[in-house]
């Protein structure tokens, strides 16, 4: 077996647990298996382990729960985003017909719009971190397959949302798409990726980080009118349901603090 094929096998075997990887690759070296036979063995073991892992409820909760929560969050965030910036999109489309000084006197400036966008972008980053953390924790054994499936789901939702912002008569597709691609998606993907890495490495969030992120996310998302418009006590339970990743982060933080108290006592 060449070094390239060995490296390829080692790369594929990263989908296995460390002990499985050590044992399987060592067995293949010892038996002097050909590349084809070794590839067949490694892939076969990966498929069997994945099928075994997907029989548990946690990966399904992680995948379906986060997909639904992400879909709802992206839908409501995009609706808010589109509505809040409708005026700015219209201004961009018709900038030739306005005197900038007049807009400035009326308080319609990008100095107001950009900080607003940044605040909501930061909130989206925090929310997606909690979703990524919950996903990474629940899907630890199937992280690669589940991540690929989730990327397909998220990309489909984002494509549909971006396309729905197209208005041929005003041509606001470019402005809407640009803001979605360069503002919304980076915040969402960055937060989600950091959360997945953290959740996959350690199922218990550091207590201070967890409380801060989870509480800020839940309260801020509710106050920002993400879910169902203006804050409303009647829809607060629904907000909690859609913020379940943040609740999950809080729960793991409480679990970790309980275990630490037992260890120190």
């Amino acid at each position, binding site marked *: 077996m060449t070094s390239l094929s060995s490296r390829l096998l080692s790369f594929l075997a990263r989908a296995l647990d460390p002990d499985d990887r050590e*044992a399987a*690759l060592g067995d293949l070296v*010892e038996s002097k298996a050909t590349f084809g036979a070794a590839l067949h063995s490694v892939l076969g*073991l990966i498929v*069997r382990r994945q099928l*075994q892992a997907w029989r548990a409820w946690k990966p399904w909760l992680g995948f379906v729960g986060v997909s639904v929560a992400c879909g709802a969050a992206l839908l409501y965030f995009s609706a808010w985003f589109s509505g809040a910036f409708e005026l700015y999109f219209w201004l961009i489309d018709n900038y030739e017909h306005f005197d900038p000084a007049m807009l400035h006197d009326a308080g319609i400036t990008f100095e107001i719009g950009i900080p607003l966008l940044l605040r909501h972008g930061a909130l989206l980053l925090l929310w997606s971190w909690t979703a990524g953390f919950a996903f990474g924790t629940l899907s630890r054994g199937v992280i690669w397959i589940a991540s690929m499936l989730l990327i397909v789901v998220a990309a489909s939702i984002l494509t549909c949302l971006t396309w729905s912002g197209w208005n041929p008569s005003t041509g606001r597709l470019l402005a809407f798409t640009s803001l979605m691609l360069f503002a919304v998606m980076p915040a969402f993907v960055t937060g989600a990726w950091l959360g997945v890495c953290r959740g996959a490495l350690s199922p218990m969030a550091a207590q201070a980080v967890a409380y801060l992120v989870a509480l800020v996310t839940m309260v801020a998302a509710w106050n920002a009118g993400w879910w169902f418009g203006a804050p409303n006590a009647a829809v607060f339970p629904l907000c909690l349901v859609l913020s379940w990743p943040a609740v999950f982060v809080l729960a793991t933080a409480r679990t970790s603090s309980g275990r630490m108290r037992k260890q120190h006592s």
Partner: protein
Amino acid sequence: MLGEFEYHLLSAAARLDENAYGASIQHEIVTTTARRCSTGALYTTIDRLETKGLIETWMGNATAERGGRRKRMVRITAKGVGEASKFYEAVIKASRGVLWEMRPPGVES
């Protein structure tokens, strides 16, 4: 009751004794049964038997022969011996008086 492959694995582990690990068990099964034994089937069955308490496993030492990678050692437990014995007795009882019991091994009809 054990499955056929589980019995083959337990028998191979019992025969190999202290030298029972992934690759050696796989080689023993292939030699004994003249059938292919995939790595995936081997390790998932090892996990299943360990969950049932019929074997114990641990990571052994790395060797140069294995490219510096450790091996997964296997040891059959008392419960595993009991279950394997039950399977063996069941096969013996089920085979009494049947045509192939009286035929010498390796002879085809």
